[in-house]
Structures are given as C-alpha cells and as structure tokens.
C-alpha cells in the first residue's frame, strides 16, 4: 500500500521536509508504519513525532493511535495548534 505522510510547522522543520511517500506491504499495521518512518527519518526526527502533544490526522481527521493504515491514506503529524 502507498501512503503519504505530512509534517506541519515545527514537525516539518524537525523532519526537514513537508512530506514523504511510503510504500508498505499489504496488511502492514501501525507498528510497520512507524518502523518505516523511523527508517526514512532517523531517530531525532522520530522523537519529535512521538512527543506527547503531537496529534495525528488520517485523511484530514484526527485519529487515535494505533490505527491500521490503508492504501492511499494521507497521514499528518500535527504539533499543538494556535490560531487567531
């Protein structure tokens, strides 16, 4: 399955890019997604993504972790928001 993973604001800066595309084997789970991300991004970036205040959106809707990724998913890592 193919996924797009996006990083915003401070996480984009920590990762060093706004998004990456991942290819995971069919049937891959949440742990496989994180492992693939870690392989691509390295540990310092992964530490930022794992911070307690980081929320994850799946296809633009906030989601709890773990979740089962599906082909075509857009996964986004969001630091705490501040509007207005």
């Amino acid at each position, binding site marked *: 399955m193919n996924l797009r993973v996006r990083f915003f604001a401070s996480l984009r800066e920590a990762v060093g890019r706004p998004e990456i595309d991942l290819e995971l084997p069919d049937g891959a789970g949440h742990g496989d997604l994180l492992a693939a991300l870690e392989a691509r991004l390295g540990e310092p970036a992964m530490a930022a993504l794992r911070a307690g205040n980081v929320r994850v959106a799946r296809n633009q809707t906030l989601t709890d972790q773990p979740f089962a990724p599906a082909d075509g998913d857009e996964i986004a890592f969001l630091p705490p928001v501040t*509007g207005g």
Partner: protein
Amino acid sequence: MSVPVDIRVETRDFDPGAELAAARRRLGGAAGAVATFIGLVRDRAAPGQPVATLHLEHYPGMTENSIRAIVDRALSRWPLLDVVVVHRVGDLAPSEQIVFVQVASAHRAAAFAACEFLMDFLKTDAVFWKREDSPDGRRWIESTGDDCRRAEAWGDGNA
C-alpha cells in the same frame, strides 16, 4: 433555511468593510446586529520581546474543516443569520490584520456571544500554527493557558 457561512484561509489581506457590505447584501431585514472582530499582529509577544514577523501555517482542507466545525457549534447555540471567518496565513508584519470574524443575528446578545465564541475556539481548536520570527530567533507558539480556559468556559465539552 441554510445560514450563509463564508470561511476563507488566505495569504492576502482582507477588507472588513467589504465583508460587511457583502453580508448586508445577503441579509434580509431581520438582522439587527452585526458583531465583528479583527485580530491584529501585536508588535511584541511578551514585554521587551520584539517580534519582527509572525509566520502562520495551515493544513489546507483540514484547517477549513476545523473552522467549519467551530462555526457549526456556534450555529447550533445561537440563532445566527450570517457568519464570515477569514484567517490569514503566511508572513505577517506587526499591525497587519490576521483574523476576521463577523456574525449577524437579529439581536446583539447572540451576535456578541457567537463572535466571541468563534474567536475563543479559533485560538484553541482551529488548525493553525504560529511562529514568531524575531531578531532573537524563531519560536513556535502554543495556545496560552488563558486561551484554553476561555474556550473551556463555554462548557461545550469540546475544548
């Protein structure tokens, strides 16, 4: 009857006078009250701390949806006739306009309450990220405890 709701996230500046004129063209004679809020970029985040530029980032699609969800909560609480929310993104200098909320209702109590409600939840729930770029460096901002208390005070269970 569907209430006109206009939500926009834009880099370009907005014109509150034009937004009011457009709403008045949409409004029938039942509207007696329009409450408006304009947020401006302040020239300092904390005393003695100069801010050169405010950088705002959003998640296209999800951000508009997050604002729509806040507006829908306001629509369910007050009998509103027209709602406009414009939020800028990109780089903003001090004194520039950053956010605009305009609410029309038959009476002023609902217009004031809904306008303040929208601003309180835009601060805490809308999907934006704000960075202060000053001569001292860059700093991503988080919602203040005061912002979160104001949002929670509405008792909406969603703060």
